[in-house]
């Protein structure tokens, strides 16, 4: 079983998985970071409370988060085809991945921003900082370690999602595991993919924790 073909297969799958994971995470943050900050700032305890808007945006986030990824994957296929021109393959999978991950990222960012000491925010307001300055100069930098830990969690979660896209021919390690392990009942193949996935998750998690600790000036 462990021949050159297998390694090529794993290599190919690994690249596809990393491609989907990293691009989706990046795009999920492009959407989720501002949305999360907006949720934190407009919260009733935030620096610019907007209860109604906050509830509407929060509601949309909750609805998107409560749709199981496998269902979302299938449900939005026409939309995916409209955006990427295809409904299968790694690039196509990025569309549902981003839609599923962005609200999750928004909640992670929101909770990191809310961890920032209220007193520090108040101090910066007392110095005449505007809402935008508080976000840029206080909330983001002060929450940085927590945001990085959150990013590691988001990346590993999205990695998990990519494997589900195996059922719709999304490509990557998930597709290999399903095609070989599920449809052809090659359990050993499935196990190999699981081991590779476990290793990648570990690496992402370790990198995240390392960077978060490295940049956190509260420690030492």
């Amino acid at each position, binding site marked *: 079983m462990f021949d050159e073909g297998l390694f090529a297969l794993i290599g190919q799958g690994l690249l596809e998985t990393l491609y989907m994971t990293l691009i989706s995470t990046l795009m999920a943050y492009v959407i989720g970071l501002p949305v999360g900050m907006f949720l934190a700032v407009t919260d009733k305890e935030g620096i610019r409370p907007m209860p109604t808007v906050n509830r509407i945006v929060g509601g949309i986030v909750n609805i998107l988060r409560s749709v199981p990824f496998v269902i979302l994957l299938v449900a939005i296929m026409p939309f995916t085809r409209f955006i990427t021109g295809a409904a299968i393959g790694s690039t196509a999978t990025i569309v549902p991945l981003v839609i599923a991950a962005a609200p999750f990222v928004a909640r992670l960012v929101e909770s990191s921003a809310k961890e920032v*000491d209220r*007193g*520090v925010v*108040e*101090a*910066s*307001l*007392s*110095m*005449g*900082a*505007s809402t935008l*300055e508080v976000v840029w*100069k*206080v909330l983001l*930098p*002060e929450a*940085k370690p927590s945001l990085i830990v959150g990013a590691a969690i988001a990346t590993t979660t999205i990695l998990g999602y990519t494997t589900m896209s195996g059922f719709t021919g999304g490509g990557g390690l998930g597709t290999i595991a399903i095609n070989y392990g599920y449809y052809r009942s090659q359990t050993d193949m499935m196990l190999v993919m699981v081991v590779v996935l476990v290793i990648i998750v570990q690496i992402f998690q370790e990198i995240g924790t390392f960077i978060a600790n490295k*940049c*956190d*000036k*509260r*420690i*030492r």
Partner: protein
Amino acid sequence: MKDIPTIEIRELNKTFGTAENQVVALDNINISICRGEIFGIIGLSGAGKSTLVRCINLLERPTTGSVIFEGVDITNFTDQELRKVRQSIGMIFQSFNLLMQRTAMDNICFPLEIAGVSRKEAVQRARELLETVGLAEKENAYPAQLSGGQKQRVAIARALATNPKVLLCDEATSALDPTTTQSILSLLKELNQKLGVTIIIITHEMKVIEQICNRVAIIDNSRIEEVGPVDEVFRHPKTLAAKKLIFPKGDFSEPLTGNGKYLRLVFEGNSADRPIIANMVLQCGAPVSIVFANTKNIDGHVFGHMVIKLPDDEEVSRRILTYLELEKISYSEEKNYV
């Protein structure tokens, strides 16, 4: 004392909560704070003092009433106008509230960044300020590497970076040990004298007021009960709230029951050194019982404080009062509370 008010608070009220479930935090506050003075606001926790200080820079918007800064009513300023004003009102806090991911230097540069000062100028100003607060060598230290006192020094430097006219101190020494408290208070006094910055101190500790304030306002139950020069308020506290604060808990917490008249005496300056009570007892030929006695040091003056129970004999009582008047001892009669 200079008589142009830097800050004037007029008929200020603040309520929290909904119409049917209203909490009054501040009730008709009127205070006028002069340029260059150190003004203390003392009260027990929950009295409303933190809300009051936040109304001064309008971090908390008053429900009614106005705040006048340097002769201009700022109560209805727009956010943008307020941000400008806040650069002239520095603030320090009980928990320091430094940016944990920035060095001491960059913390001090922070308000200057907001004010649009160039990085080069900001760094230069921050160095001066670090020097002023005695932390020149801690330029690159992060707050986590500093002690409580050092953090408060950085916070003071940060609050002064934009050359504010007023410095608000919200329980600034409450998280510090007694020695560090002393050093922070002396620093504040020094800055007040050197820079002429008006300082408003919120505290629950009488010691802080005694040590550096010129005038004090006593806040209790959302109201200002008493305002005046510190030694005067100390010598003749008129209200129950003032007495409770001036006499630490336990000494005066129980109203006296039973009949009889009580006298509260205050000795000041040299009279604290003379055997007043001993002479009084000898001259009037009447024993008195001492209910309470204490001394305090305010602004370098020693004050003695004593509560005695007068004898039931009216004649003797009268003689005692005459004696006290002759000796120029200020006294007041106390009825249900000593």
